[in-house]
C-alpha cells in the first residue's frame, strides 16, 4: 500500500495531489527548483527537497535527481502531474526498475500512446475510427489522389517535415491536389532535402470532445463521461465542460465504449483520456490517448462526485475500481476556465512577474485550484496556467452564471490574465447556445467583442475612477505625503464624524 508519494511537479497540480493525499493519510514529498522556494507546494507537503536550478531541464525534468529524492525520502510512489515527466516513458521505466509505484500507465503502454502512427495502427485494428487518410506515407501523387477520392474532398496534404503551417496544403479537387503535391514536395525537398507526404481528411467546424478513462490491473475499465474542450487558442484548451452540449446518454454510451476499447487496445492502466474530434454531422474520430491526469480533470470530479487522484492511488495499489459503468451518472454540469498569465491582445503572449494582491473567488458550486497567493510570483520558467476556476450547477446555465460571477470576483494584480476574455466568451450568445468549435474565437470575433466589453466596463466605473482621482489629488496628497514617500504600507481607519 502506498504510504508516501513524491510529486514530480509544481504549481496547482502539486497542491491538488497533496490535498487528496492528506485526506488519505498518505505522506507527501515535494520537490522544488531555485525559482520555487516560496511556492505553496513546498509549504504544504510533508517534506520538501530542493532539486536544482530554475530551468526545467535542471530540476523538474531531471530524472536522476528526482529518483535520488524518491529513494532518499523513502517515497514508495511518484505522481507526475501533467507536463514535465508525466508522459515520459523513460521515466516510467526508471521507476519500474527501481520498484517505485508510478501513478499512471506502464512504460510500454505510455510509449505506444505517444507514438501517433503506431497508435493509429492499433486503433484501426481495434476498429476505433481515426481521422480518415493515408495509413502511411504516400508513394506518389496518384496514390494521394486515389486516397483523396476514397475519403472525399477537401483533404490536407501534409509533409512530415515542416510544421507551423508550412508544408501543409488544403485542396478541394483532383486538379488542386496534383498542383499542391508538386509544391509541397518541392518545398520539402528545398528545405530538408527529402519529402514524405501524408493525406488526411480536412475537418471543418470541429469540436474537441474527450472521454475520461479508468482501467485497473484486473482488467476492469470504465469511462467517466466526456469533457468538451472546444474553446481553444493555438490548440491549447481554454474552457472545458462536462457534459458536452452535443452528447446525450446514447452518444455517451456509444463513444464512451469506443474510448474504453481504445484503452484496452493499448493495454492502458490507471487514469487516462481518449481524445476525439467531432464534426458537425455527428461523427467522432479518435485522435490520441493522453497518458496522464488531465489539467481539466476537476470538471469530471464535479459531475461524478469522484476524487480522481484517489482513484489513481487505489488503482496503483492494485485495487479494483470500486464501481461499475452503470453506477456512474452525470450529476449536473461543470465548467472550467484556465486562468492563464497571458495578454489576450498580444496574441496571448506570456505575462510574468510579481503578484502583489490576489482575491480568489469562492461560493456554492465554485472550486478554484491555484498556486496563487498575495505576494507570490508568476515565473517565466514554467507554463502560464495560474489557476483553474471551476463552477458546478444543476444545469449548464447555473454553472455558466456561477462561473461568470466567480470570474468577476477573481482579482489578480500584476500580470495580464485570460479572465476578461472568458467573461466575454461566457456572456456570448454562441456559448450560451452551446455552439462551440475549436475556432470559436475567430469564428465569432471574440477579441473584438472583448474590446467592446472592456470599454463598457470602463464607462461603468468612470465616475468612481474620477471620484477616486479627485480625493487622491486633493485630500490624500496633502495629508500623508511623508508616508507615501517612504512607500510604507499603512492603513488609516478614518474617524467618522
Amino acid at each position, binding site marked *: 500500500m502506498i504510504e508516501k508519494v513524491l510529486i514530480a511537479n509544481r504549481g496547482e497540480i502539486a497542491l491538488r495531489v497533496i490535498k487528496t493525499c492528506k485526506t488519505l493519510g498518505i505522506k507527501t514529498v515535494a520537490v522544488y527548483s531555485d525559482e520555487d522556494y516560496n511556492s505553496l507546494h513546498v509549504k504544504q507537503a510533508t517534506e520538501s527537497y530542493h532539486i536544482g536550478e530554475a530551468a526545467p531541464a535542471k530540476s523538474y525534468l531531471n530524472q536522476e535527481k528526482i529518483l535520488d529524492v524518491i529513494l532518499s525520502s523513502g517515497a514508495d510512489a511518484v505522481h507526475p502531474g501533467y507536463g514535465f515527466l508525466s508522459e515520459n516513458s523513460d521515466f516510467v521505466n526508471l521507476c519500474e526498475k527501481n520498484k517505485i509505484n508510478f501513478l499512471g500507465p506502464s512504460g510500454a503502454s505510455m510509449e505506444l500512446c505517444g507514438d501517433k502512427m503506431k497508435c493509429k495502427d492499433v486503433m484501426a485494428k481495434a476498429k476505433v475510427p481515426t481521422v480518415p487518410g493515408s495509413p502511411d506515407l504516400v508513394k506518389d501523387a496518384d496514390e494521394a489522389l486515389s486516397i483523396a477520392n476514397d475519403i472525399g474532398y477537401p483533404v490536407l496534404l501534409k509533409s512530415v517535415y515542416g510544421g507551423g503551417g508550412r508544408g501543409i496544403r488544403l485542396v478541394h479537387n483532383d486538379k488542386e491536389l496534383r498542383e499542391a503535391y508538386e509544391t509541397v514536395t518541392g518545398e520539402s525537398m528545398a528545405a530538408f532535402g527529402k519529402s514524405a507526404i501524408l493525406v488526411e481528411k480536412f475537418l471543418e467546424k470541429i469540436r474537441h470532445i474527450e472521454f475520461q478513462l479508468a482501467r485497473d490491473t484486473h482488467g476492469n475499465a470504465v469511462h467517466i463521461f466526456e469533457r468538451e474542450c472546444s474553446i481553444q487558442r493555438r490548440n491549447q484548451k481554454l474552457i472545458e465542460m462536462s457534459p458536452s452540449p452535443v452528447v446525450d446518454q446514447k452518444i455517451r454510451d456509444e463513444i464512451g465504449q469506443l474510448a474504453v476499447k481504445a484503452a484496452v487496445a493499448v493495454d492502458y492502466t490507471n487514469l487516462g483520456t481518449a481524445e476525439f474530434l467531432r464534426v458537425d454531422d455527428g461523427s467522432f474520430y479518435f485522435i490520441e490517448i493522453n497518458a496522464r491526469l488531465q489539467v481539466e480533470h476537476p470538471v469530471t470530479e464535479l459531475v461524478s462526485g469522484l476524487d480522481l487522484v484517489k482513484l489513481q492511488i487505489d488503482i496503483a495499489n492494485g485495487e479494483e475500481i470500486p464501481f461499475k459503468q452503470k453506477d456512474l451518472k452525470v450529476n449536473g454540469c461543470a465548467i472550467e476556465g484556465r486562468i492563464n498569465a497571458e495578454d489576450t491582445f498580444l496574441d496571448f*503572449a506570456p505575462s510574468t512577474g510579481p503578484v502583489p494582491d490576489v482575491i480568489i473567488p469562492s461560493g456554492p458550486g465554485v472550486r478554484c485550484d491555484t498556486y496563487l497567493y498575495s505576494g507570490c510570483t508568476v515565473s517565466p520558467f514554467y507554463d502560464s496556467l495560474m489557476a483553474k476556476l471551476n463552477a458546478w450547477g444543476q444545469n449548464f446555465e447555473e454553472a455558466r452564471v456561477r462561473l461568470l460571477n466567480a470570474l468577476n470576483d477573481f482579482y489578480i494584480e500584476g500580470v495580464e490574465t485570460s479572465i476578461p476574455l472568458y467573461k466575454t466568451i461566457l456572456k456570448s450568445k454562441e456559448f450560451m447556445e452551446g455552439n462551440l468549435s475549436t475556432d470559436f474565437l475567430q469564428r465569432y470575433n471574440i477579441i473584438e467583442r472583448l474590446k467592446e466589453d472592456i470599454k463598457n466596463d*470602463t464607462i461603468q466605473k468612470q465616475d*468612481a475612477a*474620477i*471620484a477616486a*482621482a479627485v480625493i487622491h489629488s486633493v485630500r490624500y496628497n496633502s495629508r500623508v505625503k511623508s508616508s507615501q514617500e517612504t512607500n510604507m504600507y499603512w492603513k488609516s481607519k478614518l474617524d467618522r*464624524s
Partner: protein
Amino acid sequence: MDYKIADIKDPFNAEIVKQLGNSEYLVKINDNERNLKILNMSARGIEFILDQKYHKVKYLDNTTSQMKIVVDGVPITLNMHNNLNEIVFKNSGESGVGNSQLNLYSQIPGKVVKISISEGSEVKNGDVICVLESMKMQVSIKSHKDGVVKKIKIKDGGTVAKNDVIAEIE
C-alpha cells in the same frame, strides 16, 4: 481639475464641493453632485461609498499628470490637468507617434533566443527583430516601422524585462 480617461472620448471636470465630515464629501462630477463616504484610505488605495454604491480603488502608478488605477477590478488610466480640454484638442491634431519613435520596446519579459538583424540592417514595419522565450513559448518581436537599425540593446541568451528597449530604429 479636468480628467481624461483612456478609451473615453470626452474629458470630465470634477471637484470637491465641500467636506461634510471627516470622511464624507460632496463631489461634483460633470455638474452632478455625488455623496462620497470614505471607508478606508492608504497609500495604495481607497475604499468609499459613492452615493449608495461601494467602490474599491487601487493606485498602481502615479505621476503628476497620469494615474493608473484599478476600480473594482477594472484597470483604468487617467490623465489629469488643470485645463485638459486644450491638451486633448492639441493631441488629437497630431499624427500618430509610431513613426517618429526611435526605440523598439519589448512588450513581454523573456529570454533572448535569437537576434534576427544586426546593426545597420534595413528593416520594414513588421520584420522580426528578435525572438524571446517565456513560459515555454517563443514570441517574435517585430519592428514598429520602416528604418535602419541604429543600435541593438539586447544580447543573445540574455534576459529582457517588459518595456526594455530592444533596439533603436531610425
